[in-house]
């Protein structure tokens, strides 16, 4: 099999706090192949964002630190690289967009300035050429009047438009991987669909891979090929999108899928939206054994003894559950 584009092996990103070590990411394995869209799902605080930021080493250290593991980018481990070497990879090979388009752009520079900054740096162009490139990028992400809009400031754009600007900025150097950290969470529903569609369009155009981090199962079903489900800093299930929705093995995944609102099923009946009882355990001194045990409807004594390893139950379908 060909070498994956990105291969994260046993990654542990921990944070030192006054109360002790917070194990935000505690042994995550995942990989992304060229040109595929990988969904990473899980509820708030499960380590999705920390995993994403670890890849680009955007974690503040201290308090954060890589406790163990490897982040192999085309076979090369990123963890030992220094800042100067990381800066050759950031934006040029791996780009990232964030959850909050309202605060992700610097309010005191024009959007053209901020896009041109990336182009100028990585493509070794003059500022003037880079500004032309910035306008082209704005046009590509369907912003009307791009030649005029490059001179506007972020506060003159709406939330959805700002996320388009972020995408334009991220794609301006044609990266091989785009990490989208909950790109639609802060946007309203109609805009969400537009942004997802735009990302899909860009992916087809540039042939890049996407790591789509989200907590919305609907978004996953629509846009990804393969899904990794995270819970409390660990991967609990990994499968193709069909296998995950058709045959979810982990009780947490089953819970997530049951909690998707369904209009057709509730019609006529008084069906209540299901939720998973309880909350994510503290990542500070997590309990031994399966971290989902306290909320699991099938919990057995063995569950609290040891952490179940991720094992393959069908080709490409891995689950961390003793069931």
């Amino acid at each position, binding site marked *: 099999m060909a070498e994956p584009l990105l291969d994260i092996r046993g990654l542990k990103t921990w944070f030192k706090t006054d109360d002790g070590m917070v194990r935000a990411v505690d042994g995550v394995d995942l990989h992304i192949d060229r040109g595929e869209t990988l969904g990473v799902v899980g509820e708030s605080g499960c380590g999705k964002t920390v995993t994403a930021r670890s890849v680009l080493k*955007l974690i503040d250290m201290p308090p954060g630190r890589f406790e163990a593991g490897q982040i192999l980018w085309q076979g090369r481990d990123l963890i030992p690289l220094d800042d100067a070497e990381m800066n050759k990879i950031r934006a040029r090979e791996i780009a990232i967009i964030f959850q909050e388009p309202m605060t992700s752009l*610097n309010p005191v520079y024009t959007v053209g300035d901020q896009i041109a900054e990336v182009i100028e740096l990585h493509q070794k162009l003059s500022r003037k050429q880079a500004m032309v490139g910035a306008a082209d990028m704005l046009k590509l992400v369907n912003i009307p009047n791009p030649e005029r809009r490059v001179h506007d400031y972020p*506060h003159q754009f709406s939330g959805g438009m700002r996320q388009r600007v972020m995408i334009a900025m991220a794609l301006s150097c044609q990266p091989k991987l785009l990490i989208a950290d909950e790109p639609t969470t802060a946007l309203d529903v109609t805009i969400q669909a537009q942004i997802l569609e735009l990302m899909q369009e860009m992916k087809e155009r540039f042939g890049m891979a996407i790591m789509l981090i989200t907590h919305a199962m609907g978004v996953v079903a629509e846009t990804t090929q393969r899904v990794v489900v995270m819970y409390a800093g660990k991967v609990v299930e990994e499968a193709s999108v069909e296998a995950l929705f058709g045959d979810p093995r982990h009780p947490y995944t089953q819970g997530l899928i049951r909690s998707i609102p369904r209009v057709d099923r509730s019609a006529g009946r008084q069906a209540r939206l299901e939720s998973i009882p309880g909350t994510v355990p503290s990542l500070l001194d997590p309990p031994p054994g399966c971290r989902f045990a306290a909320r699991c409807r099938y919990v057995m004594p063995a569950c609290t003894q040891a952490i179940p390893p991720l094992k393959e139950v069908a080709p490409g379908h891995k689950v961390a559950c003793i069931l």
Partner: protein
Amino acid sequence: MSRQYVIRKILIMIPSLLGISLVLFTVLAMAPGDPFEELATNPAVPPEVRAALRAKFGLDDPVWTRYLHWLAAMLQGDWGFSFVSRMDVDKLILQRLPVTLIVIGSSQIIAILVALPVGVLAATRPYSLFDQVANTLAFVGFSLPTFFTGLLFILVFSIQLDWLPFVYRANIDATGWQFYWEHIKQSIMPVMVLGLFQGASLVRFVRSSVLDVIKLDYVTTARSKGIGERKVITKHVVRNALIPVVTLVALQLPIVFGGAIVTEQIFRVPGIGSLLISAMLANDTPVVMAVTFVIACLVVFFNLLADIIYGWLDPRISYR
């Protein structure tokens, strides 16, 4: 930045200055004592002469007519006459103002030039040795009042080490380089005393402002672009962090003038501050009025400057 923004800010200055001058004039008119008070205790001057003098200078008129007279004269460039110094007020002020402006100006510039890099550097390495040392020194710096550091400096640099003169002389009998060197030498201590105080509070303010900005999302965005950390700080952090700093510098300006008055007294600097104090002691109302008004003008002017810098730093402000 739009031109309208600047024009609007300049127009706002006019009512502010009128208001300030009205309040100043009224307060000074209500204050006890007038320039002819001394004549009352002088047996050689009969009370009728004193009353005639008062009437001649319009001191018995109601306050508002006197204010309008003053305003009309001032707009024509007539700032009044100092009864004590026996010369025109504008000449008196022009004699003293440059010294004050040089001392305050250079202390502010030094304070900003030192505080900016130190504050930024401390914030990018929070709780490092550099940060701790800078913080401690800053704390000491703004805890000590200027009259204390002033005396301390005189004690150490003038009396113990005998490096610097502790009395500021306006008439230096030297020419060429020697003249400038003497001026610089005697300015060092007053500038340092004022600069230390200002710089110390600025360091702490810059540090906390940078720490606030450095955590924001767009700084992470900037880092994800692959631009070096140094450029992330200078381009994406400092400009945003400077916005509240500009406000602070402008707001502190009246305090700086207050501090300068005290410092001028300590070092015997013949500036506008010592002029104000001697005028007050001598009941020289026209001078007091003019000096306070000049200081008010300077404060308003620097606030205007701050507003313009503010609009340049943050496009959201000037676009409204």
